[in-house]
């Protein structure tokens, strides 16, 4: 009965995670993005042990060009740019990630509730979302921050407050779509509770586009923080890349290196985030996974 045995061998359990990795690693751009990410994370974690120093300390002559003494030069106060970049990596990443986590928590919660319950809940939450959407985000953040003393927590929160709307709309759209699937109805027919249907049935199926949105949001949050610091609205005690650019902006013609290197660091990080996001998007798209 060779035919029968062969049919059995065909149906082996598959491993979705392994397949995801496989798809992801087949994508060269995505791998480049991941390498960039790892580079930034390594810098943030191990940088200061290799190249210790206080970024605020004035260690040399102001505006020393890149050279033997200071690899990336010093700024107008004589602070080492390399130390700043290394230190800034952890600050920038911390802000980028925590702002994204806050964004995701607010956005997904609101989107899930609106999409699942529909009716007046949806109506109410979507009106709130629209309210936040029509506000110009940069101005809104600036108002929020100038009302209080700028601190790293406030900045994280402010970024989250202006950027959760997209996430909420995405989560809502996914929930609206998936809750109509028969397997959700089947779950209800078996007596499952709303909370368990939302968390255990719909959310895992809605996750792929959300993961991509979350990954891309890290980039947006980093850019946001840089813009705020550039405008002088950042936390003056947090030595982020945006702060470096912002504080040296008046000396841009005299010391190109003080702005170029942190700017380049931001560029590479955000590029990495985008590439990883796109790679995840392709890898998580079930249509591309066939064959």
């Amino acid at each position, binding site marked *: 009965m060779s035919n029968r045995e062969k049919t059995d061998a065909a149906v082996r*359990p598959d491993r979705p995670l392994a397949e995801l990795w496989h798809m992801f690693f087949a994508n060269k751009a995505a791998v480049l993005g991941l390498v960039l990410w790892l580079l930034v994370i390594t810098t943030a974690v191990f940088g200061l042990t290799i190249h210790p120093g206080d970024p605020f300390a004035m260690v040399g002559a102001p505006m020393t060009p890149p050279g033997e003494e200071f690899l990336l030069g010093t700024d107008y106060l004589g602070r080492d740019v390399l130390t700043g970049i290394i230190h800034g990596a952890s600050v920038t990443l911390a802000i980028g990630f925590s702002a994204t986590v806050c964004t995701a928590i607010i956005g997904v919660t609101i989107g899930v509730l609106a999409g699942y319950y529909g009716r007046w809940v949806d109506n109410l939450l979507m009106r709130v979302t629209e309210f936040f959407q029509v506000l110009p985000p940069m101005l809104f953040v600036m108002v929020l921050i100038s009302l209080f003393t700028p601190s790293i927590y406030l900045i994280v929160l402010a970024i989250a407050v202006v950027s959760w709307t997209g996430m909420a709309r995405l989560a809502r759209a996914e929930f609206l779509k998936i809750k109509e699937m028969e397997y959700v*109805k*089947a779950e209800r*027919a078996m*007596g499952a509770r709303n909370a368990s249907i939302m968390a255990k049935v719909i959310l*895992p*199926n809605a996750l792929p586009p959300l993961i991509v949105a979350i990954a891309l949001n890290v980039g947006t949050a980093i850019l946001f923080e840089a813009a705020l610091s550039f405008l002088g609205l950042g936390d003056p005690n947090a030595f982020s890349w945006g702060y470096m650019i912002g504080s040296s902006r008046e000396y841009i013609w005299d010391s190109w290196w003080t702005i170029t290197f942190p700017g380049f660091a931001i560029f590479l990080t955000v590029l990495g985030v985008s590439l990883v996001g796109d790679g995840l998007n392709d890898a998580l798209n079930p249509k591309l996974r066939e064959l």
Partner: protein
Amino acid sequence: MNSEVSLKVDNLRTYFKVRRPHLFAEQPTVYAVDGVSFEIASGRTLGLVGESGCGKSTTAFSVLRLVEPTSGSVVLKGTDICRLNENDLRNYRRHMQIIFQDPYSSMNPRTTAGEIIRTPLKILKIGTPEEQHERVEELLSLVGLRPEQKKLYPHQFSGGQRQRICVARALAPNPDFIVCDEPVSALDVAIQSQILNLLARLQREFGLTYLFISHDMAVVQHICDEIAVMYLGRIVEKADRRSLFLDVKHPYTKALLSAVPSMDKEAKRSSTALKGDVPSPMDPPSGCHFHTRCPFAEKRCSMEIPELREVHPNHWVACHLV
């Protein structure tokens, strides 16, 4: 023969309010189920037949309270399901289960077959995890699959196998009553007969009561003991299988029968096809809903609603002309 009534549905109505077309319009109502009554004896099958949009699936969902009925009562083994509070209803769901039409979309694509079948046991907290896993294996072999297939994902099965998994899932909590909502319409004819035979075998083995929804008279004739024909939210004809097919009364039932493709030489290419589509349940025709498509309609049909009356013992028809 056991003639104890298992399910009794009395004057069930389910209306939906839909979005108004413009701000000052009256909010339109969809009369999806409009006064439906039937009984199913324990261990028997009632077939609910009609075209899409006639309210047969809404009836099924209302019976299970997956859709809230507007009024009426649904009594399953002495318990009025419409009066249960949310918590009691959840617990009561172990007695009533459903098999859906589309075996592709009725399973969570991210869980394995074993987990899918185990879900009702987990939700209803039946047995320890070990007992649940044992039960899953037992159910898999019961529906003609192999226990080791529990590790596979839905997309690794064929349509017929998937429907077997859905049957196993419905059986898991040992229900008395199962709604089969077009369980074979999405399947190949060759597989259809496998699933119908499986359902019949399980019914004999476990004394299950079925409410079988379908649009195909040939399928209904094979699996059902009693048949109710529905049109736009109302039952137009109801009888046991033999009386219905021996003496079809309602013109709509006749039309449904003539639409079934046949392999007989004589019957070939002689269909009295129904004209047009089912009218919108938002704005049903007056009087007998069927009068707009009925070849025999008279003036009276568009004015008075025909009552469902017993023309022979246990043969009910709602038509002025019978």
